[in-house]
Structure formats: C-alpha cells, structure tokens
C-alpha cells in the first residue's frame, strides 16, 4: 500500500498512518507537538458544519485542523 495522500482528503471515519510532514517553520513545530510523527495512527472524526476545519483523533485527543494545514500531513490510508 503505497498510495500516499494528504490528510485533508480523507473521508470521515477513515484511519491512516502518517508518513511525512511537508509543512515548514511554526506549522511544522505545531504539528510535531501534537504528536504527528511518522507512523502515528490518525482517525478522521468529523467535519465542522461548513466543512472546514476537520477534527482528527490523534493519540487519544480530538484536534481540529484547518484543511490547508491538514493537507501538509501526508498519510497512508488504512
């Protein structure tokens, strides 16, 4: 399974493993702080009523990210 996609494209309820962060600077630090390191399992939980931001299950916490930030996280869908 080598179909890497960005996290923002996944549908609600799907799971994925983080492969790479393409963000730089502060955003990258924030994402790392949240525990989005390669190999981390992420669940797409829900979208806000207007579609953005998206809430993810990351290491037991529910974190909402805006779409363009989520798209900087590359994942392998499970």
């Amino acid at each position: 399974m080598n179909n890497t996609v960005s996290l923002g494209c996944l549908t609600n309820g799907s799971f994925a493993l983080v492969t790479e962060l393409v963000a730089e600077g502060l955003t990258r630090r924030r994402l790392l702080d949240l525990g989005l390191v390669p190999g981390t399992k992420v669940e797409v939980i829900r979208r806000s009523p207007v579609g953005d931001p998206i809430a993810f299950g990351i290491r037991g916490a529910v974190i909402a990210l805006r779409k363009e930030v989520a798209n900087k996280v590359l994942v392998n869908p499970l």
Partner: protein
Amino acid sequence: MSTEAALDSLMEEARSITGSSQSKVRDSIVNSIYQTAENIASDVVSCTSPKRTDWDRKIDNILTSRVWGFPIMFGVLAVVFWVTIAGANVPSSMLAAGLFWIEDRLTGFFMAMHAPAWFYGFLVLGVYRGLAWVVSVMLPPMAIFFSMFTLLEDLGYLPRVAFNLDRFFKKAGAHGKQALTMSMGFGCNAAGIIACRIIESPRERLIATLTNNFVPCNGRFPTLIALASIFVAGSVSLSFSSALATLAVAGLVAFGIAVTLFVSWTLSKTLLRGEPSSFTLELPPYRKPLVGQVLIRSVLDRTIFVLGRAVVIAAPAGGLVWILANTMVGDASVLSIVAGWLDPMARFMGLDGFILLAFILGLPANEIVFPILIMSYVSGGTLMELDSLADLRYLLVDQHGWTWLTALCTLVFSLCHWPCGTTLFTIQREQKNWRWTVLAALIPTTAGVVACIMLNNLVCALGLVY
C-alpha cells in the same frame, strides 16, 4: 577568545554541518520522545471501556451537526442573554436601593457636619453616585453572565463553538477562537480583550483585540434594551413588546457581528496582512462542571477583577461630570455650553450635542452614558435614573424631539464608538504598544461616525423622517 565567542563559532560550525538536515534532526528527536512516551504509556496506562468517547462523539454529532450545530449555538446564546437580562433585574434594583440608602445616610452625615455644598455635591452626588450607578448596573449581570459562561467553558462546549464558526473567521483572515473572545465581550469588552490571550498567533490575536468592541457589553445592553423598548416596541401591545425588543436587540447584535467580520477582513487585507497562521484547536472530552469552583472562579477572577478596574475609573468620572454640570458660565452650565459646540457635528450624524457629549463623558464606563444624557436633558446636575420607560419616552420624544432615526443613530453609535477607559487600559496592558491602543479607539469610532452619517443623510434624503 571568550567562551561565548567560542560557543558561537562552535554553533556556527554545527549548523554548517547539519545544514538542510537540521529539521530531520528535530524530527528524529520528537520521534524518539514520542516513541519513549508511547512505550511508557503502554506499560502503565490501561484504557477503560470506550463508552465515554462514544458519549462524547454522540454529543458532538448533535452539537456540531449540519442541521443542529448553528441553531443550538444561537439558542444557547439567547438563553444566556435572557437569563442575564431577566435575572439581573431584581438584584440590580436591590443593590441600587441599598447603595442609595447609604447615600441618604451620607447626605445626613454631611448635613450634620455642615459641609460646604460644593464639597457634598462633588463627593456624594458626583463620585459616590457615579460609583453606585456603575456597581448596581454592572455587578449583577456580570456575575450572572460570567458564571454561565464559565459553566459552558467547563462543560467543554466553547471549543465546539469555535469549531463550528472557524470557517467564517478564516474567510475574514481571523482565528476561530475569536468567536469565544467575542462572546466574552458580551459580558465585558475588557474581559474579552484578556480572553484574546487564548489565540496563539499574534496577528490573529491583534485582530480579535481591535474588533472586540463591536460586540456590545453589559454596560451598553441596558441602553440598547431601553431604546429598543421605547422606539421599536412602544407602538405595539404590551404582551408583544418584550419579544419585539429582544428581537431588535438581537438584530443589533447581528449587525455588530457583521461589522466585526468585515473589519477583521479589512484589517487582515491591509494593516495586518499575512498568511492565516497555523490553527489547532483541541476538542476536549465533555465533563460535568464543578459548579462551586465555577462560581468562585468566575466571580473572583472575572467579575471582581473587571469591576475593580471599572470602579477605579468611574469614581473620578462621576466627580468630573458633577463639576461640569454645576459650573455655571453666565446662566448655562459648562455641560450645556460644550454640548452646544458639539451640536452641528452631532446633528450631521443624526444625534444631538448632548448625546455626543454623553458618549464622550461616558468614556470611563459605558453604563454612565445614558444617565449622563438624562442628567443633562433634565439639567438636574447629578446622575439620575427615570423610573419608568414612559417617563423616558416623554423626556426624549416630547421634550427633546427624538425621532426613530435619532434612536437608531444612537444605537448604532453605542455599538460602534471608542471602547471604554477600562478596555483601552486593558488593551494597552495586553499589547504594550500605544499605537494599537489608539487604533483600537479609532477603528470603531470611524466606523460609527461613517455609519451614522450615512444612515442619517440617507434617511433624510429619502424623506422618511419629517
């Protein structure tokens, strides 16, 4: 070579060696930290049944759903308003009665001391009465509002509001959490400014700070409600009128929110240009609020804190107003002379000189704007409150020629003018840069002046008011 210089050169060398792979180093550090944490956690933490998360998700399914998300949000806000307005009436009048009872005792004391009239007037009718006004009008609604707000915060509902609304704020170049600082502003703009600390990125925090004043605070609500009751609801039957007045106030609030988004958008396109910075928002699990703690925390941290600042500023203001209203030049008080100067400008904005002057003198605290206005209309020389809305209607409409346009312009200007002294002081303390403080006063004032002038001249040109 000193040690520092040696260290610097070593760091330089290290940087040149790591070069582009520096971020990789950081990544692997974070990676191994998380690896270790995960190993430890898996050894010592055992997960209980997933029931709790299920519950959280079920609640979230409703509170952030496409259909129910927004209605529930506005419903909660409406209930908070209603409870604040309805619940504050009784304690407010009790406080007022108590404080004015003390004033009577003070009066008796000053009489017994044979104190000079100006001394008694300045201290009791000016300083003390101004203080009593602010405390009795502000304290009960603030205590109720902040308690309910802290309760919602404790429940975990507030982050969901930010989650629901972030898209709109993103379009305006702002942060979703601005929705929360705005709701806080309904209680008190100074508290709303302090709440801006929750926004991580400086640019978005500044936008939230500069636009917080477009949300009417507790000090302005009584004015909005009174004017809405007189001019919107006055013409319909009594049973209908309170609902209509609430609707009118809600409409004004919606207008304020629209202005907030527009100004935020303008700021992020001009003065505070820049990319929307990273947005991460945790949606924590719901939990049962600790009611006792909530009450203590909201009363001590927020209410007393904000009220303390207001008192410090309102006391001298009461004295100043008394002096202005009682210093006679010829046969007119300084107050009415200054109002005369302001009159041409004010008329152009659909107000009159006294209204504009009341707003200017009300700078220390918004809740004294209306009392000052009434005071200068009846030239009683001291702050006062009319007993009934009917009295107020008679004073404004029959004696001072207010039309619905005057009322509307006053409402708009109340919503959009400089923040009160306490809020400005807080902005200065939070941002530590007088330029932003000045801007925080200029932006809403400009918006208000422009809106009033446009409204007034448009309505007059259309001949809707005779």
